[in-house]
């Protein structure tokens, strides 16, 4: 995301436990200031007059401690450090625990064109939520051509050439009770070094699907709210391709991966041919992926059993053949 202003922060439609409960209480003219990084600053040190390494480009969060200190500064009438704090172009300052700044604070902030926000959340809860949200906003992103569905709780990204049957496959999966996140264009965001989130590019156009022969469908209306989801971690990549008789497809469960934004995602290559039931293959792959998460690898366990059996068989043969000789 190129530009993210304080107004965007207030406009974010966050739900339930992600809700930051932010309201603007003063300095509306400062709402157009931009947030440029995902760091948060607690301005305790600057308030006490120490401005070295002050991260003025970060959002300033005033918790209970800072608020008490502000009161003390005011009763002692030492507001020089506060004046200096607002001489920096800080994006915004946020009061936690429903705390209210004093009139003098508001006056200084508004004079510098900085907005003041307030949240009812405690500073620990609030900073955790804010960091998580800023990380998502400033995450590295790519847009790829594919369909993202959730199958048995596993986020499956289906890719492949145009016309190979991605949307039809997803439609069949939804019919079977799985969920659609996005059809056709999937925006991937790298939240951490191991966490890749996929969502639709445009929330207004999400959950629509184009099926050749029918046209554009609204999946949420057709299948109900239970068949859609806003975002989901990408845990499995399924690449559909036309059956190529000269290509060797995986027959014994070797583990392919594909790197997206630097994150290795398990990958399956599934050949498509008339009469092959691709949705059921994807369902099975998702079940298998769940088993792997529980530490059970079907292909490996099978191989282990074969090895064990061969070993015992050869031991037995050895034993019997030895007995014959003696």
């Amino acid at each position: 995301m190129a530009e993210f202003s304080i107004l965007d922060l207030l406009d974010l439609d966050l739900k339930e436990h992600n809700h930051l409960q932010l309201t603007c209480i003063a300095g509306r003219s400062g709402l157009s200031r931009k947030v440029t990084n995902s760091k948060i600053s607690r301005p305790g040190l600057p308030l006490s007059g120490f401005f070295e390494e002050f991260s003025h480009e970060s959002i300033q969060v005033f918790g209970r401690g800072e608020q008490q200190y502000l009161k003390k500064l005011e009763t002692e009438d030492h507001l020089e450090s506060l004046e200096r704090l607002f001489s920096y172009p800080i994006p915004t300052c946020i009061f936690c625990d429903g705390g209210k700044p004093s009139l003098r604070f508001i006056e200084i902030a508004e004079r510098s064109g900085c907005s003041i926000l307030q949240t009812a959340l405690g500073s620990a809860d609030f900073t955790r939520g804010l960091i998580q949200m800023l990380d998502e906003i400033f995450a590295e992103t790519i847009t790829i051509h594919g369909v993202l569905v959730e199958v048995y709780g596993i986020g499956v990204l289906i890719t492949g050439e145009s016309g190979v049957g991605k949307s039809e496959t997803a439609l069949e999966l939804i019919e079977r009770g799985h969920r659609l996140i996005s059809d056709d264009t999937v925006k991937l965001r790298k939240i951490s070094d191991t966490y890749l989130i996929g969502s639709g590019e445009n929330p207004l156009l999400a959950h629509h699907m184009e099926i050749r022969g029918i046209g554009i469908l609204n999946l949420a209306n057709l299948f109900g709210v239970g068949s859609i989801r806003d975002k989901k971690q990408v845990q499995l990549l399924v690449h559909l391709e036309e059956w190529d008789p000269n290509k060797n497809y995986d027959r014994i469960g070797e583990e392919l991966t594909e790197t997206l934004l630097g994150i290795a995602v398990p990958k399956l290559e599934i050949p498509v041919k008339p009469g092959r039931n691709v949705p059921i293959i994807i369902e099975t792959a998702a079940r298998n992926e769940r088993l792997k998460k529980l530490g059970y690898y079907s292909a490996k366990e099978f191989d282990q059993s074969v090895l064990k059996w061969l070993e015992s068989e050869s031991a037995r043969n050895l034993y019997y053949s030895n007995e014959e000789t003696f």
Partner: protein
Amino acid sequence: MIEREVEVLNRAGIHARPAALIVKVANQFASNLYMEKDKMKINGKSIMGIITLGAAYKSRLMISTEGPDEQEAADAIEQLFLNRFEE
């Protein structure tokens, strides 16, 4: 690969019908078509993808074609934009 910058000249922007037209024309060629706007790059053979770009009147897009008939494909798509998608 051939790249061209085009401008949306029809008032309504790229809605469902122009998107379908682009896909129809793109599918007549073996080359791949990509369309880019505001750092978002999508496959030009997908209707939903093109609509998602949100290309309104006067917005500028970068189209690129790649493949055996890339020249013809780029010309044909550019012509669609110049003809305002027959609107």
